[in-house]
């Protein structure tokens, strides 16, 4: 065992993000915290926006004004997927049953992590962007012949083109509004290319673009890695899940769908004689 305060031989957490100085009377309390060199409580507080701080945490450098605006617009668009969304429904199920509030967010994260509208879809779509960039021929090819791995993974296989809605009819108005807004903000790049080529891609995929696809293009335009995009997308969608979970907690399960007549058991054996 080391002497108290002697950290020379102790294992350490290595980080490029965070540095702390300790209070003179307590090595377990920080007197100053620095995020990539910036004094969080002595300098950033009051100057930096939440979006700029999130950017700094992941990129270790400040965003430009345009980059911050793009990420902020995406964050607003994603903040509440609405109460019909699978991840928000998961959170509301925690709410109506009186579950812990943490479980509501854990449920939203778990359900919102998947291949259908979730963060894994964004991750996979980001890989498509890395592979195809703004080359339409490459996109058409990868949509027609998606990459496969002989090995199975804990993640199920994608069942549709990532970034597109397998149950869509045409591209919904809000998706088009979001893409147009982000494309105008970004002034070129992938978002503008996607806006210009959306219909060609949709024709090839035979399904329309959706939010996860616009999110992936935005993250790619902003220079995020697929794993960064995956995890940022996850938490950007949590505010709505949280608000809806709390609302349903107050409203109660009696005013929440149970699908009482919605389930058909196709192999119901009927009542079985009771063993006494």
């Amino acid at each position, binding site marked *: 065992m080391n002497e108290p305060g002697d950290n020379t031989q102790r294992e*350490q*957490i290595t980080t490029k993000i965070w540095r702390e100085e*300790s209070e003179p009377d307590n090595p377990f309390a920080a007197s100053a915290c620095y995020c990539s060199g910036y004094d969080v409580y002595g300098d950033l507080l009051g100057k930096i926006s939440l979006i700029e701080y999130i950017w700094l945490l992941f990129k270790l450098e400040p965003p430009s*004004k345009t980059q911050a605006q793009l990420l902020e617009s995406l964050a607003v668009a994603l903040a509440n997927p609405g109460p019909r969304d699978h991840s928000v429904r998961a959170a509301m199920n925690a709410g109506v049953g009186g579950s812990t509030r943490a479980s509501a967010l854990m449920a939203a994260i778990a359900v919102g992590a998947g291949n259908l509208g979730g963060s894994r879809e964004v991750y996979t779509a980001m890989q498509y962007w890395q592979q195809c960039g703004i080359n339409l021929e490459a996109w058409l090819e990868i949509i027609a012949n998606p990459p496969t791995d002989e090995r*199975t993974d804990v993640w199920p296989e994608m069942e549709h083109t990532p970034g597109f809605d397998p149950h869509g009819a045409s591209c919904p108005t809000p998706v088009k509004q979001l893409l147009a807004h982000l494309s105008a903000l970004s002034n070129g790049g992938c978002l503008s290319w996607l806006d210009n080529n959306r219909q060609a891609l949709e024709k090839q995929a035979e*399904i329309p673009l959706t939010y996860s696809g616009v999110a992936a293009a935005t993250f790619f335009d902003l220079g995020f890695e697929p794993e960064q995009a995956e995890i940022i997308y996850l938490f950007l969608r949590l505010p709505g899940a949280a608000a809806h979970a709390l609302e349903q907690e107050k409203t109660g399960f009696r005013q929440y769908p149970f699908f009482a007549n919605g389930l058909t058991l196709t192999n119901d054996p009927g*009542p079985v004689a009771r063993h006494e």
Partner: protein
Amino acid sequence: MNKQHQTPSGPTLLKQCEDNWQTDMGAIFFGERAVLRGKDVLEELGQHHWMEYMVFAVTGRESKSLARLIEAIWVISTSYPDPRLWNNRVAALGGTTRTTGALAVTAASAVSEATTYGLKTSKGAIDLLYRFKDKIDSGHHLEELINLELKQNRVVWGYGRPLASGDERIVPLMCLARSLGCGNGPFVKLAFQIGEYLSRSRYKYQINISAVAAGLLADEGLSTNEFYYVAALSFVGGIFPCYVDAATHKEGTFFPLSTGRIKYKGSSSTRKWHTPGD
């Protein structure tokens, strides 16, 4: 825009499914009974051991011996109660911060779906055995398959172990498996053959418990997904004690870190924030 398939798709499919879930898996009839896979839970399954029920739920098979084997694999391979192990440590951190037992244990369980250990390794191991067996049956040589796997993926799931060179769990598990009449099937043999080759290779990888468990349960006919599902909660035997232990120690005392334990390797020295411009 949607293809005109024989089967409905797009919004038509969703309309068809609205308030319409057809299933042969199970349902509750409130105040009366519940059904799982066509069997009455109270009358036909109520006397089952919990693991037998779980095996039936996941695979549809009713087998006391399979349940016993899976239980043995759980106890021996995934239930170490050391709070330094990364998944267990999540539960211990939850205990020391006084979060709820369910939150800590489920978070730790989710963390067990890891790449360097845990579920990804387990699922990868059984997948590897099935792929290799198929190819060997069609004439490929084992050495060729292993070398290709290493070349393409730089990892052979089920072989090698972080922080250790050997795996002390293998002998007791194989003893127990043999006592249950298992352990001599083709997949277990294949698992050990791969281990033998790798241990002699320049990589010196040793077989780990994932490959043995995968071999044992492949020989019992579990599919890749079935093996993954029955393993999904297998770590809770080690996770729970770590939570209980930390929750009963004084709060906040589980491996506290002083500020000096952060080793800053960033390139930026202290600097002032300026509102970003274009």
